[in-house]
């Protein structure tokens, strides 16, 4: 019998999955908690921890954009601001978290700010932040995902995650704040 040659299947040759496969939420939660715990050992302060989570999310966002553009949008890309925002708010959220984001708002104080809000981010479901970590939000991971999507779609922005206390609710809701770069707004104005 001839010895079997090792076969490295080229990942690009495999058919693209429909995206219907699921894993348990707890499986994901364990994995995410390990991600956060590992990063805690690698940093000295909260700012760095948020940055590392954001960087991890950025890499996810880049890939999500490519995957969804190909699978959901037939390789068409968004050129308008509202288009890409609604792509993130609906399509990306629906695929990653199973539902569209709770709300998408335009900032009132600044022209270049938009906010996506969620009552409880999926990644934060089983996370509790000790008091001495102040305003640290593991949603920085999601902020990174959004930044990855926007950056690679041609809409560079600074994206951060914030807790916003809500009256009558024990857990604060999370807002992803998106601040677009100058060039994006100028381009948008030019496009009319």
């Amino acid at each position: 019998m001839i010895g079997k040659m090792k076969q490295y299947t080229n990942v690009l040759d495999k058919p693209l999955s429909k995206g219907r496969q699921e894993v348990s939420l707890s499986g994901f939660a364990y994995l995410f908690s390990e991600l956060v715990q590992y990063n805690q050992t690698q940093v000295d302060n909260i700012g760095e921890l948020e940055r590392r989570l954001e960087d991890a999310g950025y890499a996810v966002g880049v890939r999500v954009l490519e995957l969804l553009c190909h699978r959901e949008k037939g390789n068409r890309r968004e050129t308008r601001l509202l288009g890409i925002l609604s792509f993130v708010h609906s399509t990306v959220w629906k695929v990653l978290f199973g539902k569209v984001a709770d709300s998408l708002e335009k900032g009132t104080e600044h022209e270049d700010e938009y906010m996506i809000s969620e009552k409880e981010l999926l990644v934060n479901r089983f996370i509790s932040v000790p008091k001495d970590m102040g305003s640290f939000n593991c949603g920085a991971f999601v902020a990174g995902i959004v930044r990855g999507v926007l950056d690679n779609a041609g809409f560079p922005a600074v994206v951060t995650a914030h807790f916003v206390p809500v009256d009558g609710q024990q857990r604060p809701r999370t807002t992803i704040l998106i601040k677009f770069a100058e060039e994006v707004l100028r381009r948008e104005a030019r496009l009319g």
Partner: protein
Amino acid sequence: MAPAVPRSGDAIFANVERVNAELFTLTYGAIVRQLLTDLEEVEEVNKQLDQMGYNIGIRLIDEFLAKSNVTRCVDFRETAEVIAKVGFKMFLGVTASVTNWDTEGTSCSLILDDNPLVDFVELPDTCQGLYYCNILSGVVRGALEMVSMKTEVTWIRDMLRGDDAFELQVKLLKQVPEEYPYKDDE
């Protein structure tokens, strides 16, 4: 008296909350990428993944026992079957099969039909020594340790390294009887 019927993997999986496997896959990829950047040595990354898996396993076993209603496994054969059919299904949504039992019944192989961790993944030439799914070996080891079984879990076949399947070998080293936490004479 009939023991409580253990629930099948499919039934439990249908009842737990689920998330898109792609989020899971991409998050795991981000973790491996971070480890490779930080640790640089592939062996170190393998060890770290195993450790992370171990940390997950020691917590995961509680949820597993709570949700699956399994009765105490009579022997290691049953343990392996339960892991393959119920455990993997419950958390990863995929089943595994158990094969390659040795003569004493202390070592077997779990073959994964499908592996959500490795969707879209290809190992570059610089990382050929990497056991990408090493977190799974840690999870199994950690979970079994919490139910008094010391095991050694290693990857026999890995599709990312050119083999045709994902095969995990689970070897029972010894049964550690549960230690009674209180001294009898106090």
